């Protein structure tokens, strides 16, 4: 097995410059240190402008819940959630199998055929295309964006994104380009609301992860520590959990021989245990003795079970979920309760989410979460009521995210895209959000992304500048504007006319793209 891998490596050395690809294609490792470990680090209020509430009126509880648990509020969804009530709506979202999403899934299957393919089939497609797996990777990005845009299972899609970012991989490191499609289908999606232990085990058996963090070449004779270290630091217990370099090395030894099959017999790209590469000796991990001598992959499984059961893991995952859904600096008491739920339920993600999303701290945490660029784009498209996007349109939307710095599966280091506002609130980010907002409302994506601005204006029934501003604020923000901001936007639309004066439809149609872009670009819309 490992000789197959080695011979492939030898082969590559002969390919001119092949080795450069992975290094050259990597984007820089951007800003770090904002969210590793515990305790969460508060931005310096003294040293930076303080995080204070900007708006005099906050959103109501239902709108708050939708903002945090969906990729953005489509027209009509708020009213539906209000009728159902918070608990019922959340319960439905926590059980995606009860939501009929068959139309979207049928479209996904038709539009993105590689999503259901085996690793071997994907390799064959990539070799046929001779594009290094690029088209396979792009199809997963397209499908991911498509589901975020159109799926009714919004909390589910949000959690799929959470886990894909938790077990983050860079799409263009070697064969991750093809294998991530399998990982998405077999790890994040089926287990998004499952038990954390199962998710962790699935990820550890994911060929994409083996490739991304180099465990595929982790062998007894000179272990590769990459996966072992990030497994503890980023996937389970965090760097403050008190483990040592020796623990990292011992975990790596336990995982020797966990690799990817490349036997050329039709199962390329499958996870496989290579007993010949496994270190069978005794090990000690976090004080737990592992006798060794097992003929299978038992040592590694014991390590994963130990990590998933570790109290630091309950706290680490709960803290991260609270940071995702509640605040950049999660309320410690809520993290403690979520971790207690995690421990008492054996890591039941759904139960932990219920603890978090029905907590008082959750509803009290308005203006605590900044939309990241991807969420900004999807929320804008959903609020705009976009229903028609071609595959080219999806590509163009994905390309539009590059200047903003968040493209699905393209964060190179293994800690995933940061999920704190300070990482994203910068000049490059804001300028590109504003420009993207204008590009959408001015129709610069053409027929590939149909943005129905005129339809929005017509449906609003607005006859005056003030009515248009109020209707757009309600549609895009699900809230009222502070009066000075409302006056500014009315002034932008009215251009000197009285706010309440009846104006012709063509005039509102002409002003609407700028108005909507201003609302999408405003501080209001940047909050999740």
């Amino acid at each position: 097995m490992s000789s197959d891998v080695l011979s492939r490596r030898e082969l590559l050395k002969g390919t001119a410059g092949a080795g450069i690809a992975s290094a050259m294609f990597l984007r820089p490792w951007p800003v770090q240190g904002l969210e590793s470990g515990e305790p969460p680090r508060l931005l310096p209020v003294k040293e930076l402008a303080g995080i204070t509430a900007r708006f005099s009126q906050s959103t109501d509880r239902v709108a708050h819940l939708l903002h945090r648990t969906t990729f953005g509020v489509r027209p009509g969804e708020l009213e539906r959630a209000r009728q159902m009530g918070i608990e019922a709506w959340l319960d439905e979202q926590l059980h995606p199998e009860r939501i009929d999403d068959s139309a979207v899934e049928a479209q996904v299957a038709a539009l993105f055929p590689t999503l259901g393919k085996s690793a071997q089939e994907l390799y064959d497609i990539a070799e046929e295309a001779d594009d290094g797996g690029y088209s396979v990777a792009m199809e997963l990005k397209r499908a991911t964006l498509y589901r975020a845009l159109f799926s009714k299972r919004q909390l589910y899609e949000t959690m799929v994104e959470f886990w894909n970012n938790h077990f983050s991989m860079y799409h263009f490191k070697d064969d991750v380009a093809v294998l991530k499609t399998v990982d998405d289908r077999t790890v994040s999606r089926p287990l998004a609301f499952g038990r954390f232990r199962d998710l962790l085990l699935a990820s550890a058996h994911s060929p994409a992860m083996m490739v991304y963090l180099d465990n595929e070449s982790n062998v007894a004779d000179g272990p590769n520590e990459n996966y072992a270290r990030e497994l503890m630091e980023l996937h389970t217990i965090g760097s403050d959990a008190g483990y040592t370099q020796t623990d990292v090395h011992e975990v790596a030894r336990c995982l020797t021989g966990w690799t990817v099959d490349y036997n050329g017999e039709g199962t390329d790209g499958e996870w496989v245990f290579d007993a010949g590469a496994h270190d069978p000796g005794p090990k000690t991990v976090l004080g737990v003795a592992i006798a060794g001598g097992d003929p299978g992959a038992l040592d590694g499984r014991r390590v994963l079970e130990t990590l998933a059961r570790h109290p630091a893991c309950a706290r680490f995952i709960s803290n991260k979920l609270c940071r995702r859904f509640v605040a950049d600096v999660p309320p410690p008491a809520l993290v403690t309760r979520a971790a207690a739920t995690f421990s008492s339920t054996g890591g039941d993600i759904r139960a932990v989410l219920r603890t978090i999303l029905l907590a008082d701290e959750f509803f009290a945490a308005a203006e605590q979460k900044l939309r990241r660029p991807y969420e900004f784009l999807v929320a804008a498209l959903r609020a705009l009521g976009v229903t028609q996007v071609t595959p080219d349109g999806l590509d163009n939307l994905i390309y539009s995210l590059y200047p903003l710095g968040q493209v699905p599966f393209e964060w190179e280091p293994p800690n995933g895209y940061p999920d704190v506002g300070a990482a994203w609130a910068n000049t490059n980010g804001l300028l590109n959000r504003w420009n993207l907002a204008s590009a959408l409302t001015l129709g610069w994506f053409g027929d590939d992304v149909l943005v129905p601005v005129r339809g929005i204006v017509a449906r609003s029934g607005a006859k005056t500048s003030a009515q248009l501003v109020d209707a757009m604020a309600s549609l895009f923000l699900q809230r009222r504007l502070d009066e000075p901001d409302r006056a500014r936007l009315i002034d932008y639309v009215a251009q000197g006319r009285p706010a309440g004066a009846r104006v012709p439809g063509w005039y509102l149609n002409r002003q609407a793209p700028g108005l909507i872009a201003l609302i999408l670009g405003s501080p209001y819309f940047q909050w999740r």
Partner: protein
Amino acid sequence: MSKLTRRGFLGALGAAATLPGWFPRLAFAAPGRAASQRDTLVCIFLRGGADGVNVVVPFGDRHYHDNRPTIGIREPGVGPDRAVDLDGFFGFHPSLGPLKEVWDDGALAVVHAAGMPVNNHSHFDSMDWMERGTPGERRVLSGWLGRHLAAVDAANTSPFRAIGFGDLVPASLRGTIPATSLASIADFHLQGFEDQISRFQGTLAALYSGTTFLDVQALQTFGAVGRLTAADPGQYEPQHGAEYPDTDFGNALKQIGQLIKADLGLEVACVDLGGWDMHDTESDQMPGLLADLGAGLHAFYADLHDRIGNITVATMTEFGRRIEENASGGTDHGTASFMFLMGGGINGRKVHGRWPTLAPEALADPGDLAVTTDYRTVLGEILERRLGNPGVEQVFPGFVRGSYLGVCRE
């Protein structure tokens, strides 16, 4: 390793990393220095933990090749893939060939076995500590460059005083002085229909008139856009035949050169170059990355030569790699690594610092190059002697430094 040939990726990229044969030789007089002006500092963070001993190779250390039987760089000599001799003991990786000219020019120095005194081998903790300037602890919330900026010259209110090149602002720039992040000078303007853009911008600015961090960043954005529009940097032609590699890194350095020449008040610029986390196939990955680094620095030096007396470039990385290679043809996380220092005020053509040797008893746990120079000693000297900061102890709180190495001139 990889099943795919990745030919599709390579077309555009392979060429960019290699210098053309006709690359202009440098032939300049030693640059002068305008003493009144503080240096512009360009900080390059090599993300991922760069393997210092395969970048600046201690071929004279007899333990080097014992530990690197397959990925070691051969000592200088006749033939390809040999280290480029610097002083009879150290040599550049062959892909850094272009930098030898800057070295010979006296404007490039190495500090070897540099790093932090605390190490848990975590990328994310190590980058975090290094950028805060407080290894091992997180109580100080701003970054070391942020504190430097706060300590000197409050009169410079330019939005281009501090630049983070790329999508995000590096943690080292966190602090009271807002930094501007930008990825492309050419695209750094507000888009929209021309007849509506000024009203649009006026309304948008009014919507961001609060005091949250979003409002602060918006204000910074409008300021930077306005300043850049007024300066109208236009098409940029690098000087002295400098050829920047057409990579993210090369384009970042080129645009920093453009900003420096536009005299926009740039004091500190940060650039990242990632891809150093070479747990496997290091021999395949290292040449392209080093070619990018070397060609970029070489072009920057040539392009900015008329001003190089007031420019200092410093590289850093969160840690080095394990000295013994692993069975994947790579190296795991280690401790000390190297720093490059480039500029007119650098005491160049020298490997600074004490070499701890690679003898087994000299290695740091669990088999790493030991740190003999705290990176803050190097940066402190640069801040004090080149950037006019008399209060370096505030930049690195709690750090009791030893004597400076003499990496730069007063």
